[in-house]
């Protein structure tokens, strides 16, 4: 055991954790909007819109995240037309490519989580709202969304942890996130176990915190079906 290496690599890894957290938080926020949008489309009665939303989530859930990042980072740059538009400013940065891939990916999973949460809301709540003459927009924002959030908390907590692990793939497109830096230190020192313990420890610490925050929220908002 090379304790010295563990201590000296700790600040570097901690620094890289900031990038991991940035990637995670931005993708989760964007993904939540994408997920909510597609969950609403999924519940649409129009078959075509419904199929489109289903296709989106099927494709993003059925392929590895690595493929998605590679298509966006290496693939899209190949389209000459894109290079002339303002999109190129975003797409030439590995950071934004990773964020786009992560957001679309977590959006697909989130849409499934939210859809099933919306569908398990008891029809009685909506009927009660309607018979009290509450406009359907307010039923949606004040009744459906709060209940759906409560019901999807446990599953969404898992999704956050999966996404935290997913951000490690940013290292494959040259980003120096926690895993990227860990790999760099391993390949220069050839001490995989030590670096794994430190980097893995940081990841575990983050999962631990996420897990407990979700648990606290579940308790606070009273999980009920």
């Amino acid at each position, binding site marked *: 055991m090379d304790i010295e290496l563990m201590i000296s690599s700790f600040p570097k890894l901690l620094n890289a954790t900031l990038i991991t957290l940035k990637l995670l938080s931005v993708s989760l926020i964007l993904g939540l909007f994408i997920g909510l949008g597609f969950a609403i489309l999924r519940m649409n009665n129009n078959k075509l819109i419904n199929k489109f939303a289903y296709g989106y989530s099927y494709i993003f859930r059925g392929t*590895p995240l690595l*493929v998605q990042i590679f298509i966006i980072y*290496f693939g899209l740059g190949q389209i000459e037309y894109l290079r002339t538009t303002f999109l190129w400013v975003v797409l030439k940065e590995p950071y934004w490519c990773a964020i786009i891939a992560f957001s679309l990916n977590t959006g697909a999973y989130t849409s499934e989580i939210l859809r099933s949460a919306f569908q398990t809301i008891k029809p009685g709540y909506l009927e009660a709202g309607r018979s009290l003459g509450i406009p359907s927009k307010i039923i949606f924002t004040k009744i459906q969304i709060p209940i759906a959030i409560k019901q999807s908390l446990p599953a969404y907590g898992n999704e956050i942890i999966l996404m935290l*692990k997913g*951000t490690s*793939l940013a290292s*494959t497109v040259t980003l120096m996130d926690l895993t990227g830096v860990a790999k760099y230190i391993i390949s220069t020192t050839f001490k995989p176990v030590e670096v794994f313990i430190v980097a893995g420890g940081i990841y575990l610490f983050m999962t631990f915190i996420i897990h407990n925050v979700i648990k606290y929220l579940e308790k606070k908002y009273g999980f009920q079906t």
Partner: protein
Amino acid sequence: MELLYFGDKGWGDELFFATLMTIAVSITAMIIGFIFAALFTPLKLSNNKFLNSIGNAYTTIIRGVPELLVIYLFFFGGSGAIMFVASIFGYNDYIEINAFLTGSFSIGIISGAYSTEVFRGALQSIDKGQFEAAKVLGFNKYIYFFKIILPQMLRLAIPNLSNVWQITLKDTSLISVTGLVEIMRQSYIAAGSTRDPLFFYSFAAVLYLILTFLSMQLLNRLETKYSKGY
């Protein structure tokens, strides 16, 4: 489409064999995962606090650390560890383990953690009366486990195991970083030499979609077969 021709001109045959490699790694990893699950599920259910914490440590660590980091650990650390063990037995030459084994093993350990949770959940949701009845009736251990507990456990576990299979299948794409030529690696090579990454990575995505779709069909059939009531 010429890019997909079989033979020297296209990448069709290379990608075909790469797909077979992905399937082979996934199945091997799944089996290694079952072996880990068979070892750790009893630990997780054990009343002994020490054994219990070993079981919990395994599932918590593996499920809380990125797959890529686990793969790097085995990729860079694997041959070192084996050489260390070999040096105890007096063998000091350089040993290189093959990428297939490292890959399957690291994905297997990951998939094993998920399988362990599935088996634990399934065992815990079997009615306690079943265990008691089997014991009271004096069945021997073999019948007790293989004829009474296992069939009931599988029935509950199969739907979740098909999720584990999906995760495992997609995780194998990460082994491409170690150089094992599976779908992702082959697409990377093809994209590099033809300068057509969009086409090859999209095609890789299609291959994965086909694999997940076909395996879901197969697993759904298995699920209906085993979910028959008793």
